[in-house]
């Protein structure tokens, strides 16, 4: 099974490179797809080397690796900015993005810390340390700024959940996000609701509905919950209500005062309130057109007319928007296969993680699974217009040496650790 995964990944890699090979023409090595080939070769070599390293060695050097990449993240802030972000080290024709490797380092350290004998997820202090292991690099990346990569670190929530974080916290988080998004939606649509002849802004109305909901919940608790739990539930409800209302109001405040016009535009476009083909909505409009033009069976390999480098109707078509190329040339069937494959790999990785005796390996497996999943979710979601436009690569597809190398290393470390699963005692 592992071999299958490996072959699938190999296929992915070749697949992706062949795409990139198509994207550019002329002399091979001087172009980006040539560079990508070099990166892939380096990745494969390093990945193979890692397969030869003892798993214990990797496990023991986790914190060292983590510290090393953290240091790089700090240094990179003093490098000259490229495209407005201080994310790259440049060496001649190649550039390295330490934030990609920070994900790997963070996964290792996170797994290592949580697998220490005396660490328990229920312990507040341990929780804080675990959280800060993730938050420090996330903050550093935020400063660069690179919100897309930063967002990926949110994926560690899944790992925490698997390791015993209360599901309620996840639900509350989801609830908060839902409220915020709805709030933004009402705000963006600038809708008004008329009640008793009074025009109330949509946002206030939403807050009002929330309040009603909470009141209803209060009565439900009062009459249906046993008295001894009531007190506890009331406290929780009160907190939730206050936070909910606060979020609604703060959304209103942030939207009006802190967002810039283009942010507002992006939200409005995402919710389909506004269509803007030329300005902020250009990327997504072009991407959706390219995807839509693939129809059921696609135009055929190398036969795209919108999303490749020759026509370039889709911007960033070999990095963040590479999915458009796939969608245009292979159509719905190809996309569906692709999504199935990706889901299968993610699930397969969870299976691998679950069959480990070593806690470290399991947590590590979950870490990289959630990283990959977040990449997948945000990238595809953005391209097909379900999420706001955030720059984030699609693992093993998008151009970018650091990402390919980092993901290959992540996977090969998992494979190495998995190979040792029978040796390690619980």
């Amino acid at each position, binding site marked *: 099974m592992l071999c299958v995964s490996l072959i699938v990944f190999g296929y992915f890699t070749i697949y992706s490179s062949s795409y990139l090979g198509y994207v550019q023409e002329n002399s091979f090595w001087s172009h980006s797809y040539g560079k990508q080939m070099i990166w892939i070769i380096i990745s494969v070599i390093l990945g193979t080397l890692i397969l030869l390293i003892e798993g214990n060695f990797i496990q023991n050097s986790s914190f060292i690796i983590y510290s090393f990449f953290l240091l790089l993240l700090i240094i990179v802030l003093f490098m000259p900015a490229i495209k407005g972000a201080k994310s790259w080290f440049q060496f001649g024709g190649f550039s390295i993005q330490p934030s990609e490797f920070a994900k790997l380092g963070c996964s290792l350290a996170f797994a290592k810390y949580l697998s220490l004998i005396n660490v328990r997820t229920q312990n507040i202090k341990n929780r804080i340390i675990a959280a800060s292991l993730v938050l420090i690099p996330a903050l550093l990346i935020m400063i660069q700024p690179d919100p897309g990569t930063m967002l990926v670190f949110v994926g560690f929530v899944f790992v925490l959940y698997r390791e015993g974080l209360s599901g309620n916290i996840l639900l509350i988080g989801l609830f908060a996000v839902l409220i915020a998004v709805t709030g933004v939606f009402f705000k963006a649509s600038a809708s008004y609701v008329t009640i008793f002849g009074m025009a109330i802004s949509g946002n206030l109305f939403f807050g009002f509905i929330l309040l009603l909901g909470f009141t209803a919940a209060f009565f439900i608790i009062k009459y249906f919950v046993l008295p001894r739990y009531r007190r506890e539930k009331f406290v929780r409800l009160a907190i939730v209500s206050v936070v909910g209302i606060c979020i609604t109001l703060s959304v209103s405040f942030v939207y009006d005062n802190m967002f810039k016009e283009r942010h507002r535009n992006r939200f409005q476009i995402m919710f389909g309130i506004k269509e803007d083909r030329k300005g902020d909505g250009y990327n997504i409009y072009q991407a959706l057109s390219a995807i839509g033009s693939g*129809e059921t069976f696609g135009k055929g390999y190398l036969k795209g007319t919108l999303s490749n480098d020759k026509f370039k109707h889709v911007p960033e078509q070999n990095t963040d928007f590479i999915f458009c190329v796939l969608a245009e040339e292979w159509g*719905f069937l190809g996309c569906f296969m692709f999504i199935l494959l990706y889901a299968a790999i993610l699930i397969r990785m969870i299976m691998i993680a679950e069959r480990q005796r070593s806690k470290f390996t399991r947590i590590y497996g979950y870490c990289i699974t959630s990283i990959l999943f977040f990449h997948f979710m945000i990238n595809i979601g953005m391209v097909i217009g379900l999420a706001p436009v955030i720059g984030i690569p699609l693992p093993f597809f998008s151009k970018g040496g650091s990402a390919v190398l980092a993901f290959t290393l992540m996977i090969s470390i998992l494979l190495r650790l998995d190979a040792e699963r029978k040796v390690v005692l619980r």
Partner: protein
Amino acid sequence: MDPYQNRRWVIILVIISISMIFSLRLLYIQVIDKEWSKRAEQISYIKENLQPPRGFIYDRNQELLVGAENVYDIYILPIKVKEKDSIVICDIFQISIEELREKIHLASTGYNVPYKSSVMFESLSKEEFAKIAPLLSMVEGVQGKSKTDRGYPLKTGAHLLGYIRRISQIQLDKFKTQGDLFYSKNDFIGITGIENVYEKELRGERGDANYLRDYAGNKVETIDKNPATPGKDIHTTIDARLQKLGEELMTNKIGSIVAIEPNTGEILCMVSSPTYDPSILTGKKFVESYTMLKSNDSLKPLINRPVYNDNYRPGSIFKLVQSLIALQTGVIQKNTSIVCNKTKIGCHHHEEPTSLMKAIKHSCNPYFLEVYKRLILSKRFDNYFEESRKGLQRWEEMVKTFGFGNPLGVDVPEEKGGFVPNVDFYDKWYGKKRWAFSTIYSNSIGEGEIGVSPIQMANLAAIIANKGYYYVPHLVKKIGRENRQNNFLLKHKTCVDSSHFQTVIDAMQLVVESGTGRSAQIDSISVCGKTGTVENKTFNDHSVFIAFAPKEDPKIAISVYVEYGTWGSKWAAPISSVMMEYYLKRKLSKNGTEKKNNIKEAIILHPNTDFTF
């Protein structure tokens, strides 16, 4: 046991549900909703109309009259223009920095976008462009692209060729309602002359092409292409050299020269004076030049006099028509003698007209008054008025067979037909039975109410040369590879038998040899001609001459009309002789050259003319 191990299913569920949401969304975008696919087509396709190149126009000797000339448009690409280059650019085009800013602004707003180049200057000539081309390579964002405009290598024949200009909205709508969907905005269309009459042949057929374009609008790949069919070339009957000579001779004179090849009806030259250089009505100069030509009221240089000026009275050349009709009806014989009685009509001093030939030779007015009288009134009339009416009707019908009074059908737009006075006209003018021969006798010598266009005069010369018939004069011989058009192959016969022509022809020879037209003589060629002096009350009389040569086998028939030319023999006759000599010999003798130079230098204009030419 790990208490949380079942939580893996929750995570797997999340992954599966996200994947399903994505799949459904993709299903919607790609398969169910066709809207995005259509939008993609809008984004990536570009349809282009392919303009056919307009046909060329050649003269009868395959010389190019209208061709294509390369001109250069200067394009500007705003995003590439650098601040430091702007002074250099200003220097190259001799404009101020504000003007440049304005141009850049124009090129970046409205329908124009900064990453696409748009026109900054239109239609620079080859010479102008050659001057600035090396400088242009030093700056970025400005470049020249060649295109073709109408070119006139010989700069001759402005009136007969006509000009083209951008189609107006009114014309566009008119064509649309007629179902002709060829034109679109900014297309050029022939307005006058051959450009107008043969517009359909010259314009060709439009093609179209579909391209795939890239994000910047550049054409990247051709999907299909339906090439344009170029317009057909027009081969005219014009002799460009003769035309050019005619224009030279007519400098600083008002009037026209028309020459026709009698046995085919082909027009050899059609000079209208004052004329203009046809190349000034092209490209960016058009509006300026057109306004200049249009505002020149007193000379009306845009008017094609040979076909539009049909109110010219023919003068004494009309005596030829009178003679022929009289001979045909038998009211006179060739040796009929009539006394030169100057009581009713003036005449100059000459020997007694003892025969028709002598009368023509000296252009005797009283002789033709009598002829006209005999034509209108039969010998024993009962009712003077009634007889005049009948006579005039008979006369009008006969005159019209010479191609007068109606448009000949020449292939020029809006040809005018002139006027032969008739019964209705005089009835309206004087009232019924209020007029008779005594009222209308000035028609006898080509004065009065008769109006004839110069091309009809030339046609008269051709009819006499042909002894009684004519082909409709025409400008075009061949369209593309097709030969002559059928309507120009039809022989039009006059009412006069060919036997009667010999007398008139002999008389015309006498006119040139020893009569009023001696100034039309050409060495070693026998010329037949007839002078005319048309009365003009405001200034000098107009000078008219028609002729054909050589007498034995006429190759050229010509009419010359010089306004204010005093009398027929003074200017019109020598001009004819120079034209004919050049056409028949392809060169001028010493005598001819001398004549030509004298004529060229003469300025014959009405004193009230504000002389701007």
